[in-house]
Every structure is written in C-alpha cells, then in structure tokens.
C-alpha cells in the first residue's frame, strides 16, 4: 500500500492530503478547492441553482470569471451579432455582479482563454487544487497544481462550498528522457504520448510528467503537455515545480510578493514528489526519437510522425477496428497513405493548447524563414489566447509580420477550437489546427475535418497550402536568419 510513509509521497498525494477536509458518508473525500475558474458556458445553470436554493458563494474571492468560448474574435462590439452569445455574456455579467465575483471582460486587458489567463496573472501556483467547468483545466498542472475539469453541478458545489466530493486517482509517472530535436515541440511530444497510451489509457489516473525532457521545457511548453493529458483520459496532468516554475511566477500580479515569495518557494519545493515516491504505474519515453506529429483520424490518439503512413487496421486491436474504419472514411484517408502534401483549406493557430506568446513566436519564425504568403484559397488565422498575449505579440511586431504574409490577426478567445462562436469550418473543409480535439464536427461543421499539429507545422501548412514537414524548412534555410 502506498501513502503509508511520509517519505514516499507524490505531489498528488501531498496536495490531496493538504486539501482534504473530511471523509463523506459516501466514502468520498470533501476536498477544498484553492482556485475556481469559471466561464460563460458551464456556469449559468450553476448560478440558477444557487438562486433556487437561496445559497451564497462561500469564497467569492477564490473564483475568477472570464468569457472565452462564445466571444467573437473579429467584431467584438456589443451587443454581439449572435443574440444567444449576447445573452450568455449578460448572464455571466449579472451573476458575477450579484455574487461578488471578479470578471475579466473583453477590453479589460486581462480577458482570454481561462487556462491562459490564470497562469499569466500568477493565479495558478504550485500545490493548489484548481477546478473549472472545462476539461482542459489540466493545463494548470504544469505548475505542480492538481487541476481538473468538472461539470456544472460541481461548479455549483464549488460556488456554494469551495469544495468537491471526490475520490482519489491513481498516479502514473510518465518519464521522458533526452531532449526534443529541432522542429519538434511540446505538442508533438504529447501527441506521441497519446498515441502510445491511447485516448482511454489514462482513465482513473493523474499523469505526472517527469524526466529530463520535461524539465527542460519552458512553462508554456509544460502547459501544452499538461493541457492534453485529458485527451489521454487522465483527469489531470502535472509537472513537479522547479526553478523554471518559480522564475515564471516571480513578479506576476497574483504571485506572492517580496519576502512571501521566498517562503512560497520553500513551500512549493516541499510539495514536489519525493525521489522515492511510489507510483501506481510508470512509463518511459525517449524525446530524441520523435518527429513532428500530425493526426490522421478523429481521436487525438490517432497521430503519426509527419513522414509516416496512415496505419493499417491491423495496427489496432480487433474491437477497435470499426472505429478506425470510421476514422478513415470520415477523414477521407487510406491506410498506407502519406499525408505530406495533402492540401488543406484552413489553418488555425490558437487555443489553450498553443495560443501563448511562445507559440506565436514559433509560428512567426516559420513565416520569416519561409518568406512567402499564405497559399491562395487557404484561410489562415492566428488567435492569441489572451489580451495580454496579443499585446505582447504586437509589441514585438508579430501581428505585422503575420498580416504581411496573408494571415488574419484576431482578438483573444477560443475561436475555431470549438464551434461556439462565428469561427467555424464549412462543409468538408480540412483544417490543420494547433487545438486539441479532432473529433467529428468539433470545429463547427458536422463534416468538417481536423488535423492536429504544432504551431510551426500549422504555419508552414498555411504557407504551402498543404501538410509539410517543418524540419525541412528549419534545416535548409540558414540564409534567412530570424529578425529583429
């Protein structure tokens, strides 16, 4: 049995024990939630329940609200053209006013995709429990927090009690050795891990991402990895905090200030998994062996290296082959086919997976080196994950570069990651996207198709009009040095 010895605990164990309030009659634990994030889609019904039962919000200062899913990323003037979107925005405004919750609106300078703004403002910190009515809450685990998505009934529970009824997860340590090659990104790493462990392999687990390759990643890259833990079935993913974590947090608005910061670092270091911690499962990966990844199917674990062929049905267990056949048919690909050179219609760079400043810089580097314009007929657009990311990118002139090369430059929001705002695929359009889900219909058309890839791969596909291998560009064009 694990959890027995104080010296053998994982970060997950320690954070859990620190936040456990009591054992409920069901046997579940009442767990304190340190930070609650809400957005416009999954919260209105929760507030309606509170009103029905005459309840108040127990810790309004521990909840932060923003709007991201429904906001248009082009014309943001109010009222929104979509009356349903306008109604949802008004609902969250009213709810936050009535219950005393901070709301970051478009124009506030702090609005953005919920999983991007909380880290950039220093709200997300090591050792916290974080919940949000959104599955990609796993993103915040990059800081060594236990962060997970919840449903609307649970949003209500957190609002009313700042706690949840939960059962403990198992912990799988995913150790990644070595280092990523040039042109291979954190996105490629997580797509590879998903392919190996499958979309359901993580059910019942928290994923601890560890090892040399993980600790070499920047915080933004770690967020990309943890973000997609949910695509592997894991409820949350995390990285033990280290010097890179502390450097990222130092000086951010809501991070501890002054002397408190030094005390915080001590506490955060102690929360990391012990070297001899006991895990329920362990897996080892080699980062050096990876190439840029693309997905060929309709589940995020249906990924391949960009030079590999689409796998044959025999590569999958028998009971999965019907689903695999469905994926070939939906995507219009054949087993054995290579996707290099496959024409694309839409290129989308953004989302809580890849909508941060370093993602936009990586895309910009590809644009500079390539030097061309977006292929005629291709719609390519770049959506910063937050107003702060947009400001920072514009301060570096990235928007001018993108615009000059034929990309659209938008305002912050979820945009074409999902079909709740005006940015959508049409008909059977094929998109290459830095988002996280290639599900049927995810990007707004019931027949629309999605290839998931990294920001450099998407930028290059936009310029070439087809799926391309970014390594060729990065290795060949030594003449075009990045500027400024």
């Amino acid at each position, binding site marked *: 049995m694990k959890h027995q010895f104080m010296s053998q605990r994982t970060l997950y164990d320690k954070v859990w024990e620190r936040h456990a309030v009591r054992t409920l009659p069901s046997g579940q634990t009442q767990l304190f939630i340190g930070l609650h994030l809400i957005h416009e889609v999954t919260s209105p019904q929760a507030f309606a329940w509170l009103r029905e039962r005459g309840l108040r919000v127990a810790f309004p200062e521990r909840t932060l609200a923003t709007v991201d899913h*429904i906001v248009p990323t082009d014309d943001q003037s109010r009222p929104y053209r979509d009356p349903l979107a306008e109604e*949802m925005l008004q609902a969250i405004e009213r709810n936050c006013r009535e219950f005393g919750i901070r709301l970051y609106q478009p124009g506030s300078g702090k609005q953005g995709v919920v999983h991007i703004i909380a880290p950039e403002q220093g709200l997300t910190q090591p050792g916290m429990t974080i919940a949000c009515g959104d599955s990609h809450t796993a993103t915040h685990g990059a800081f060594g927090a236990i962060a997970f998505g919840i449903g609307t*009934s*649970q949003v209500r529970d957190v609002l009313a009690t700042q706690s949840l009824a939960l059962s403990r997860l198992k912990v799988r340590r995913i150790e990644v050795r070595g280092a990523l090659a040039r042109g291979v990104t954190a996105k490629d790493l997580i797509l590879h891990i998903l392919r190996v462990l499958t979309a359901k392999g993580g059910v019942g687990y928290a994923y601890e991402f560890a090892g040399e390759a993980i600790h070499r990643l920047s915080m933004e890259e770690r967020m990309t990895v943890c973000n997609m833990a949910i695509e592997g079935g894991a409820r949350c993913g995390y990285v033990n905090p280290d010097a890179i974590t502390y450097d990222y947090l130092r000086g951010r608005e809501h991070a501890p200030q002054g002397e408190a910061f030094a005390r915080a670092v001590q506490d955060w270091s102690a929360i990391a998994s012990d070297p001899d911690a006991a895990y329920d499962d362990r897996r080892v990966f080699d980062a050096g062996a990876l190439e840029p990844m693309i997905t060929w199917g309709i589940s995020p674990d249906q990924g391949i290296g960009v030079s590999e062929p689409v796998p044959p049905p025999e590569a999958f267990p028998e009971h999965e082959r019907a689903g695999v056949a469905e994926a070939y048919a939906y995507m219009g690909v054949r087993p054995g086919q290579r996707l290099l050179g496959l024409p694309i219609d839409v290129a989308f760079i953004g989302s809580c997976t890849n909508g941060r400043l370093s993602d936009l810089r990586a895309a910009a580097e590809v644009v500079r080196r390539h030097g061309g314009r977006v292929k005629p007929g291709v719609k390519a657009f770049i959506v910063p994950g937050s107003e702060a990311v947009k400001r920072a990118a514009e301060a570096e002139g990235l928007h001018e570069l993108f615009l000059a090369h034929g990309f659209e430059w938008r305002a912050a929001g979820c945009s074409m990651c999902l079909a709740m705002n005006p940015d959508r695929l049409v008909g059977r359009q094929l998109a290459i996207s830095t988002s996280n889900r290639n599900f049927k219909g995810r990007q707004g058309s*019931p027949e629309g198709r999605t290839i998931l890839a990294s920001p450099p791969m998407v930028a290059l596909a936009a310029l070439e009009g087809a799926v391309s291998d970014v390594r060729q560009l990065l290795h060949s064009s030594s003449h075009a040095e990045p500027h400024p």
Partner: protein
Amino acid sequence: MPNRILEVSGRAVPVRGNDIDTDRIIPARFLRCVTFDGLGQHAFADDRAQRRAQGGLHPFDDPRFAGASILLANANFGCGSSREHAPQALARWGIRAIVAVSYSEIFHGNCVAIGVPAVRVSQLDSERLQDLAERAPTLTFTVDLERLEVRASDGTSVPCQLAEGPRRQFLSGSWDALGELLEGLPAVRARAAQLPYLRGFA
C-alpha cells in the same frame, strides 16, 4: 434528499462505437444557452443527421427504441469536453441509466451528480446486451445497483460494476453531493485557514 436509486428499469437503446465524445453527444453549437431545458431533442444531433443523410437511422431516431431509458454503449463513452450538457441532454431525451465498458472520468462524475447511474460491463457483455436490444427491442432491461447486475426480461443477466462511492450515493439517495458538502462548510473554512497560500506563506 431521500432520492434513492436502487435500480432503473426500462427498454434499452444501443449506441455502438468506442470513444463517443461529448461533442457528438451534444454538439457545441447547442451549448449557447443558459439553461439545460430543451437539450434533449439535440442529443446526438450531428450523428443522427449524418445517418439520415446516408439513408439510415440513428438509434435515437429509430421508432423501435422510442421511449427507451437505458443507454447501451461501448468503451470510453463520454470522452472529451467536460460539458454536463452531455448527460443532461441524454437525461432529457429520457435516459435514466447507462451501461458501457468504460467512461471518461468527468462524464461519469457528471452522471452521478445528476442521478444517472452509469455502470460498467465487460467488452463482451456490452456487445451481447446491444445485440439483444437490437434483436428484441421490446425487452425490459434492469440495471440493479444493489446486486450489481444488468438483467433483461428474457432471463439474460450479466454482472456490472460501479465504484463503491457512487454506488453508496445512489443507494442512500445522496448522489447530489451538495447537501453533505454544505454540512461540511465549517470544516472547509477551518481547512482553508491552514493553507499556506491563503496565509501569505507565513
């Protein structure tokens, strides 16, 4: 509070396929709403339209399964987005229990929170039950949470699983956790007062 759920009985509707995600259960465009009312009619909207366009019928449109209250699914059902709109849409369509090989964590938790037991059966049994419902759609199925079995009125019976916590919640009528969580509020406040990050790391 005493809203105990010991078993759910009714006709069953099989929806085949692994990894059926919540975007398919309720496409995102129907999430532009501030209440869950009216979601029922949009359950599986795109899958149903697609099946119709191909000249077929999705089980949710098949008159043989009209009025069914038990959904028979396969592996990793409800993966993807955490939207509670998905189980809400199924519940409002008429589903009161789900039988599948496995579920995404969040989807399963959402089902518990709204009082829809979602039990697990083996891969083989999930397909057997689906075959049975297709052959004999008028059979009554029972998901029995006390005995942990799924029965059909022709005598078929297979074991099922449900974690002990949620099982106790259904059997005792405490699947809506809010009441118990509210009782613990003083303890929550005491716990919060000890957390380093709420005390300035002092």
